[in-house]
């Protein structure tokens, strides 16, 4: 019962702690940018030094022009200022632009890497992780890490060097006064860290509630029909109001902290100013400190809180990003439990660079030889020592109750999973001796829930055979009686909408049938495909199937027993295991489980037939 997997991996690893904030784990992805990043660090230090130097201009102006009552060096002063300003502007432009480049570069590389890696992962990964979770890894983790490598790093460098340089500057200008102000630094650090910690926790909680509320909106809209037919608008509404009230209360609670926090930090810088006025004023009065220098001290004292706050913010951001690093690298390091061996790749190519010239034709002989199997996330064997020969052209039908595990065999044939023990042979050779792509390129597959990609009808039909001509497409459509569907939509160039939502399930199914047979596959897999089509349409499809499975090996999972009576072999699955096999006639004669299933389905009808 692979479909009943619980997805609990969402927030279980929020408190993750990695050595060095997990940065070593992403180093390989930063390598291409390391030279640029080194230069950025240098430029950032330069920029912060320039910034810390500015008050000195003010000091000079005060000491020399204002106090000295002379304008003799004004020209040189303006020139120097202009030079420094130009340097700073140039420096900042390059730094921010490069930051953007590095950020987007790392982001892009990680996104490509994770997306491409996902293309090689086996189904057990997708069964164990839901789409939303994986999607967030590709789309948002990469962005966060890109941001880390550029902006966060620069924040640390810039603010760190700015803080150091103003502290050094103050010590150089007047060590005694500087020491008084330095006393405030540890206090500030303690206060900021304390609040930061609380706010991180509260903000996480707010985000959680927020996503619940978004989920509620989604539920109210996608579940509208259900809500209306049940008449439970009130109940849903009350629950919603409870969530928004929770959100409001939590947010206001968080503001008590954040408001106190910002107020305290600004107050601290004003205290620093007070200290300068008190101690510095005395020094000035005693003639030990020039008026310009006093003014510089005031600027530094007030400006000191910003870098401290920024550094602490950045560190808490680093802590938060660890989760993203952990999750993304976990994805990137997940090894597919269905992988081609190096020898196979050498000969047949991998998923992205197939060596089609070495591909043998596939004829469609399938054999299960002593196959035992359990799902990677299950602990019970669903097949043990299973043997079955399916010569090419054989039609295999798989029947059983809902959730009995009918998909297992199909998953093995398609090599979506590999046997735990034993072999699946394709044309007499172990499936693992040839590449997955080779096999998949030769299989036609119709899903239980049809899936179309946004794009035109033609794009979708040609999915398995990109070079198919319109004639071929037309032929495939005729075979499955889907011409009407396409005509109704307005031809092959009509858009099918996101996930094919312009079409009904039945129509999507018809199109996915056409898609599956377009590439003329030797093996055809039909996974409960006929479940939601009405009888008349289904009859059309079945007639078509009868034609298309001629000469092809086919595996059909079906609900309705009437659709399987013609099959060469029927496999009866019960509670995950194959309990009977044979032709319809043989199984009926056996009067076992199949017979029971069959007669029960028709008992009402039989009573009437007399």
């Amino acid at each position: 019962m692979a479909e009943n997997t619980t997805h609990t991996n969402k927030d279980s690893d929020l408190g993750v702690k990695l050595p060095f904030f997990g940065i070593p784990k992403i180093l390989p992805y930063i390598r291409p940018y390391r030279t640029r990043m080194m230069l950025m660090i240098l430029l950032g230090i330069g920029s912060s030094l320039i910034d810390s130097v500015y008050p000195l201009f003010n000091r000079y102006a005060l000491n020399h022009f204002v106090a000295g009552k002379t304008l003799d060096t004004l020209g040189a002063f303006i020139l120097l200022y202009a030079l420094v300003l130009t340097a700073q502007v140039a420096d900042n432009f390059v730094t921010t632009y490069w930051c953007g480049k590095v950020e987007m570069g790392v982001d892009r590389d990680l996104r490509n890497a994770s997306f491409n890696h996902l293309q090689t992962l086996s189904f057990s990964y997708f069964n164990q992780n839901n789409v939303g979770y994986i999607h967030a890894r590709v789309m948002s983790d990469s962005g966060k890490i890109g941001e880390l490598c550029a902006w966060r790093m620069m924040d640390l460098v810039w603010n760190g060097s700015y803080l150091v340089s103003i502290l050094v500057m103050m010590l150089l200008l007047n060590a005694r006064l500087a020491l008084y102000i330095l006393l405030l630094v540890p206090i500030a650090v303690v206060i900021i860290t304390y609040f930061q910690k609380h706010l991180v926790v509260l903000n996480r909680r707010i985000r959680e509630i927020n996503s619940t509320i978004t989920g509620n909106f989604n539920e109210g809209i996608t579940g509208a029909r259900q809500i209306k037919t049940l008449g439970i608008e009130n109940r849903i509404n009350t629950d919603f109001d409870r969530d928004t009230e929770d959100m409001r209360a939590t947010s206001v609670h968080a503001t008590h902290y954040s408001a106190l926090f910002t107020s305290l930090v600004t107050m601290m810088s004003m205290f620093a100013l007070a200290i300068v006025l008190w101690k510095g004023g005395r020094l000035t009065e005693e003639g030990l400190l020039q008026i310009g220098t006093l003014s510089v001290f005031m600027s530094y004292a007030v400006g000191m809180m910003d870098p401290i706050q920024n550094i602490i913010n950045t560190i808490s951001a680093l802590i938060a990003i660890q989760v993203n690093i952990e999750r993304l690298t976990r994805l990137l390091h997940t090894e597919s439990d269905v992988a081609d061996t190096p020898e196979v790749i050498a000969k047949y190519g991998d998923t992205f660079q197939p060596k089609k010239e070495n591909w043998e034709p596939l004829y469609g002989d399938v054999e299960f030889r002593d196959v035992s199997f359990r799902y990677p996330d299950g602990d019970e064997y669903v097949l043990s020592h299973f043997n079955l020969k399916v010569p090419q052209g054989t039609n295999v039908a798989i029947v059983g109750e809902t959730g009995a595990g009918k998909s297992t065999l199909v998953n093995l044939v398609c090599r979506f999973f590999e046997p735990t023990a034993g072999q699946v042979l394709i044309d007499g050779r172990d499936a693992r001796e040839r590449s997955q792509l080779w096999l998949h390129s030769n299989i036609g597959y119709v899903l239980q829930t049809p899936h179309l990609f946004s794009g035109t009808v033609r794009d979708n039909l040609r999915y398995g055979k990109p070079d198919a001509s319109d004639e071929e497409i037309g032929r495939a459509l005729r075979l499955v009686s889907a011409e009407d569907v396409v005509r109704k939509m307005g031809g092959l160039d009509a858009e099918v909408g996101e996930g094919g939502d312009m079409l009904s399930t039945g129509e999507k199914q018809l199109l996915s049938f056409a898609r599956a047979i377009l590439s003329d596959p030797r093996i055809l897999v039909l996974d409960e495909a006929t479940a939601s089509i009405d009888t008349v349409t289904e009859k059309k499809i079945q007639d078509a199937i009868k034609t298309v499975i001629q000469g092809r090996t086919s595996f059909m999972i079906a609900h309705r027993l009437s659709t399987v009576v013609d099959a060469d072999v029927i496999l009866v699955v019960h509670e995950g295991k194959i309990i009977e096999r044979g032709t319809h006639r043989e199984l009926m004669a056996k009067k076992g489980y199949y017979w029971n299933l069959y007669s029960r389905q028709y008992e009402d009808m039989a009573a009437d037939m007399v």
Partner: protein
Amino acid sequence: MKTKIIDETKRQIDDRRGVRPQKPSERFPSKSGLVFYFLRGALHYFILCVFFSMCVSFLDMTAPKIIGYMVDSIIGDKTSDLPAALNLLVDRWLGGTAYLHAHLGVVALAVAAIAVLAAVCRYFTNLFDSMGSEKLVQRMRNRLFDHIIHLPFAWYNENHTGDIIQRCTSDVDTVRRFVSEQLTQLLRIIILIVFALSFMAGINRQLTLAAFVFIPIIVLYSLFFHNRIGSAFERADVEEGKLSAIAQENLTGVRVVRAFGREAYERERFEQKNDEYTKMWVRLMRLLSAFWVSGDLITGLQILVVMVFGAVLCVDGKLSAGEFIAFFTYNSMLTWPVRGLGRVISEMSKAGISIDRIRYIMNSPTERYAFYQEDGDIAGENRAEDTLISGDICFDHVSFHYQNPQNPDAPEVLRDVSFTVKKGTTIGILGGTGSGKSTLMYLLDRLYELPEGCGQITIGGKNIADIDLETLRGSIGMVLQEPYLFSRTLGENIAIAENGAQETDIRAAARVASLDETVEHFTERYETAVGERGVTLSGGQKQRTAIAQMLIRKPPIMIFDDSLSAVDAETDAKIRHALAGYTGGSTVILIAHRITTLMQADQIIVLDKGSVAEQGTNEALLEKNGIYRKIYDLQRSGATA
């Protein structure tokens, strides 16, 4: 109360039938009207926030003044130019300049005291802003949600889910930021500028003029730039959406990608889009960097002008050292707010679009009333308790076609359909895809309204258009083919429509729906979370949950809209047998593809392309040798093969 319902219902019917003007007047004709509607209960917080923010600005202005005074009149010997009242204060209470000269700590204490006072005001500014902002968001969300779930069903089909959710999340956030960040910030910046201007002008008018010349330049420049870059950001957002959609489709369609061996194609497609997206952002970053540094440049020049001009004034004796310092401090206090002003204004201009997008939802007429009633929850009041209706259901010459703006000549889904379902009997409806079976049921449940002149549907002789929706839907239990499960536990899902359902009721309903065995497989049984955040149920399991959900209500009319399609034949039979003993006197409408599901019904209707093709009992229809017979044989062919 009762008459009020009837009046409302009548008015609604009148509206629908075109007695009143076709286009109902909009509830919120203007943007500001909607904003003020949402602001109810939040406005006073924002007023308090602005008030405290004024206090903060004023207090912030005093520090440079004190510094200047100290430098000039306490340390230096310049006669104080403070207002007379303040000089009096210094002389009377603080012991005069001479005392302060000896005790600079007192000045420092004054600065610290002001800092504490400012901190308190700042705290309240932020707190009230947040309280107002959260109240506003809460009200917006509640009103929107309340409105949305009361919209007619057709509305959901005409509007994309993703789009509506975006309106309810990011557009709501845009409006919140408009009020609680941009509007208040705009006011704060203006207040700050006005205060600073007056304080600076008090020091030196010429210098003030020189400093303020730059302000319009900075604001206009950033306004121009933000407007320009705004569209670039939108394009980048669109690109990101496309990229995200590719990833999403690839993941949801992973089976198809694998089965068709199209990984390389997917990779190429993704990498190409990813590259485009990245390049777009890098270009955008270059623009942004250029903007930021040109802002730095203008600010740097402004500081230079103030410094040089100030120095010249000092040398001329028109400005003292303390005044120079104070002026310089005021000037630097203005730098960042002024630089942010352009951004704030340009962002505010975007809010209009978001307000209109929300207005669109709030102006869509709800199902019950063409004109939405003020706040109170509509469905709750006036509810006539326990007045379930039952009786013969009669479809009387019903014709219908879906309104489709793109295709006004949409073909009729139903054509002149007439039949009667006697109270307490079971009717089976058989028909192909698109034969109109589900539409018939949607009309009965008034998910879609039957327009005037298209026949009528009655229950117990009463036109359903005249029956209160609450009562109608409470009386009809409908199980959908593709039911939706709420993200709650399995038990809660079953009991969701039945207040006060007991554990035993849940179990009983689950047993009839043949769900009890499935539940036993889950470790947490009825406490198992389902839906988006829980266990993924198979189509058949979902259908059976929905059946239990309907059964627990024991409605007098039960509809199974192809709701056994994903259940295997054996379970199907099991459920039907159990149902027979459970439905009691309920009228049952069964829609199915499987003849076996229908054959025991008291009456069977065969729908073909929107019309009743055949009608009768199983035996009668079999004898008739028509469509029913044909389908019967088709489904039967397996048995005789």
